């Protein structure tokens, strides 16, 4: 099975050239070319990111913020430079609002444990949605439980889009905090986050946005969105695991207590008391995963050089190519929107008579990597009336021929299961 794009399909990207930057894409699996369609789970890494990280280890590795010597200063500059790159990427007003953490999950937990615990009390209302990944659901569910607050979960319609009537009704309850996804990892739906945030603010709430599936695939501007906190994971955007970000508005971060205590987050420690470091370091206790953050900086450079708008356009073209081909297969049910409006390159589906795990195993034998299961989306799966789906998710290096390979692999699965 070839992995080159048929010339007839239009895309703004030179995908073949991009693919050459990713060493892993030349690998084979079970003797077949690797077809990597599990990008919503984690992305592959370009040579530029791998090299940026190797060069720290080989050329100037030393701990950040501590040494008064050349290598420490160079590493610190690279780490803080990565912060500035991330700040520009999301149009943060200030670099000190960008807090490095392990991943979106840790960033969301930071907000839950600090702002959440300080402001959400008995009788208050917290709003989230059935679309959320567990990372933006369980923290708020547990916060509400611990605080004696009410958790309101906004439902979706048949296409997987948020029920705006229910959201408006939830806002009428004057919530303290609203936690919404920017893009669903299970269905690929892009939520109207800007409007939802404005409605939440009008109701007096603080808004936390899970941008783990939007920042890697589109241009995200925190000032345009108007949110209060926004979290995402580096590993889904060409960077290494361990490079996560939570952004928050400085005036909120300034007033929040630290999340974790330890080194680097203090300004002065005596036996009797401790005062906190300035932003962002107040929230970065202990030695940060600084090489991972530097890798994230290189990934941001790479994504901006290709162009996030063009990446989004390419993924839209892949979805437009895939949807009718998948819908034409008897027994295949697609979950989520059936067109390309307000969605990213995530396609969840089921094949009648074959469990998602069996689908993924047969795909693996064909060299295809997809996710099978509940995608850390159990409330959503329950809402959809299924325990598991098979999910194919695209990125800038995926080709139209790989979509053909997906279609062929579904045929193979149906043949094995005789359905």
């Amino acid at each position: 099975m070839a992995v080159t794009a048929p010339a007839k399909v239009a895309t703004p990207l030179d995908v073949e050239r991009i693919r050459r930057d990713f060493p892993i894409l030349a690998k084979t699996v079970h003797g077949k070319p690797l077809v990597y369609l599990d990008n919503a789970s984690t992305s592959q890494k370009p040579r530029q990111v791998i090299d940026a990280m190797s060069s720290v280890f080989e050329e100037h590795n030393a701990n950040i913020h501590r040494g008064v010597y050349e290598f420490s200063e160079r590493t610190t500059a690279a780490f803080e430079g990565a912060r500035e790159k991330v700040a520009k990427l999301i149009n943060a007003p200030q670099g000190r609002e960008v807090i490095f953490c392990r991943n979106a999950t840790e960033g969301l937990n930071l907000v839950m444990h600090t702002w959440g615990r300080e402001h959400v009390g008995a009788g208050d209302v917290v709003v989230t949605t059935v679309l959320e990944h567990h990372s933006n659901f369980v923290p708020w569910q547990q916060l509400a439980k611990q605080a004696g607050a009410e958790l309101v979960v906004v439902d979706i319609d048949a296409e997987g889009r948020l029920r705006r009537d229910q959201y408006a009704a939830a806002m009428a309850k004057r919530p303290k905090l609203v936690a919404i996804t920017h893009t669903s990892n299970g269905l690929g739906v892009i939520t109207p986050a800007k409007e939802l945030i404005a409605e939440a603010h009008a109701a007096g709430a603080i808004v936390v946005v899970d941008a783990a599936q939007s920042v890697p695939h589109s241009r995200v501007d925190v000032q345009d969105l108007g949110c209060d906190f926004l979290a995402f994971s580096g590993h889904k955007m060409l960077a290494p695991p361990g490079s996560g970000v939570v952004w928050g508005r400085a005036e909120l971060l300034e007033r929040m207590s630290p999340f974790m205590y330890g080194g680097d987050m203090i300004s002065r420690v005596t036996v009797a008391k401790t005062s906190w470091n300035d932003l962002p370091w107040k929230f970065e206790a202990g030695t940060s995963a600084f090489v991972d953050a530097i890798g994230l900086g290189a990934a941001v450079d790479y994504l901006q050089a290709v162009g996030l708008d063009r990446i989004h356009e390419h993924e839209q073209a892949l979805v437009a190519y895939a949807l009718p081909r998948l819908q034409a297969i008897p027994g295949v049910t697609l979950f989520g929107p059936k067109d390309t409006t307000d969605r990213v390159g995530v396609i969840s589906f089921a094949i009648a008579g074959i469990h998602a795990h069996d689908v993924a195993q047969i795909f693996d034998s064909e060299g295809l990597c997809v996710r099978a299961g509940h995608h850390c989306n159990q409330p959503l799966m329950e809402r959809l009336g299924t325990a598991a789906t098979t999910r194919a998710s695209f990125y800038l290096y995926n080709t139209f021929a790989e979509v053909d390979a997906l279609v062929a692999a579904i045929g193979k699965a149906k043949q094995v299961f005789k359905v």
Partner: protein
Amino acid sequence: MDDFYREFILDHYKNPHNFGELADATHRYHDTNPLCGDEITMFLKIGAGDRVEDVSFSGKGCAISQASASILTDEVRGKTLDELKAIDRAHVIENLGITLTPARVKCALLSLKALKGSAWGLHEWPGEEAKTS
């Protein structure tokens, strides 16, 4: 792949033996595989001499988990509770007769976990994460 999804595994998956709820069960145990959401409830009717008079299972999941449960329940009628408690994992995997990847071993063993849970008269697997929700 045709080796993996052998005919008899697909037969058990599509037409599972001992499938459904046992109305007069004396023992029952429900378990899930949190990775994929597979579910199995095992029902036992234990009679004189602590022997299995009847058995059934219900649930939903992949071919491996459902075939494993179908094959396992075929074997347990007439066995004593102590004999059920002694069934080992290797036996259940041998029943399937295929090489399982690590991710799929859990699918194959869900039925055994449910069977043992019911044989021991458990309601909740000991040592699992605290139920906080």
